[in-house]
């Protein structure tokens, strides 16, 4: 689980990009963010890499689950 809460955009999407590269394109990846712009940015990146994204929201925080 990548915790990107409190990071201003575009840092969270870069954290996800690094994790995807370092993990050699893992089949599943979870990331927590606290801004809608980060959800959108990560969703765009995930789509470009062939991942599907599930977003769960609770108390203004978003958990994104990326799956191949």
């Amino acid at each position, binding site marked *: 689980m990548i915790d990107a809460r409190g990071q201003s*955009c*575009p840092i969270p*999407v870069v954290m996800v*990009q690094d994790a995807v590269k370092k993990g050699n394109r893992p089949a599943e990846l979870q990331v927590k963010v606290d801004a809608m712009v980060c959800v*959108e940015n990560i*969703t*765009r*990146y*995930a789509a*470009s890499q062939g991942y599907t994204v599930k977003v769960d929201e609770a108390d203004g925080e978003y958990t994104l689950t990326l799956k191949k």
Partner: protein
Amino acid sequence: MENEIKLTKLAKCAGCGAKVGAGVLAQLLGDMKVRRDPNLIVGFDKSDDASVYKVTDDLALVQTVDFFPPIHDDPYTFGQIAATNALSDVYAMGGEPKLALNVMAVPKDMPSDAVHEILRGGYDKAYEAGTIITGGHSILDDEPKYGLAVTGFVHPDKVLTNSGAKPGDVLLLTKPLGIGVLTTAAKVGMTTAEGMALAVRLMTTLNKAARDAMVQYRVHACTDVTGFSLMGHGLEMAQGSDVELHLDVRAIDLIGEAVELARLGVLPEGMYRNRSFAEAFVDPGDVELARQDVLYDPQTAGGLLIAVDPADADRLYDALRGTVPSAQRIGTVKTYGGGKRIFLH
């Protein structure tokens, strides 16, 4: 060395991305009591770039103010960009900037060299524009900010607003799009040196040459493309003129690196704000999402969007080529059909 401080680290948003959204702004200003004056040719009721007040039959004043937090780490470059951006609103109205006042916020501990360099950048651009900086106002603030309040002159009959576009007009644009993406990506080191150099060159190029060319021809409407993006400013033009815009996206100069970064999800928050303001009025056709995103990208000191009479379109386009960073013939204006305001093809 003044460059030891990283200016953009002190900024929460990048440049025009710091702008309050167009929709929010309209709401905030919605119920203000405004004194009416027949000499006020352009006020804030039409969401135009600057206000214009007629003084005599031959002279009107154009007034505008624009300032924002650092968009570049080099203070001199930041000063140049902020001034270029502020002066642009006068050019967009067809006017010539004459007088300006510095608007500045500085953190207590900011080195005086850096403050001096920001101001020097502003003075140099103002000088290039033929504008005199006559004073200003500075306050202490955690986040540095700089810009200008600019007064320009225009002939009252030659004011260009964003609400005069007519069906049949040809749409021209004078700078490429993607500056906001490049400056946002630069904050995380993802912009190449070439990309950043291009962004800086664009953001420090005055819209003076574009203005000087366009006033020679029958231009019906003009606006500068800044924080609200091509789509946001285009929508304001379409609504203000009660027309619809048809854009040929292949003819729009989208900075290649910005499109690549958009595909990687490296996009400024302002892009999403612009989308939520405008996208309900836009028919995106089958244009790729990343390219659409760049059309919604907030520009700092972007180019002019010009609606020109079709009979003058070729000549103005030729006049712009070689004198502006990127002359583009991006689409046409059509009679409003009652549905969407902007169509992407």
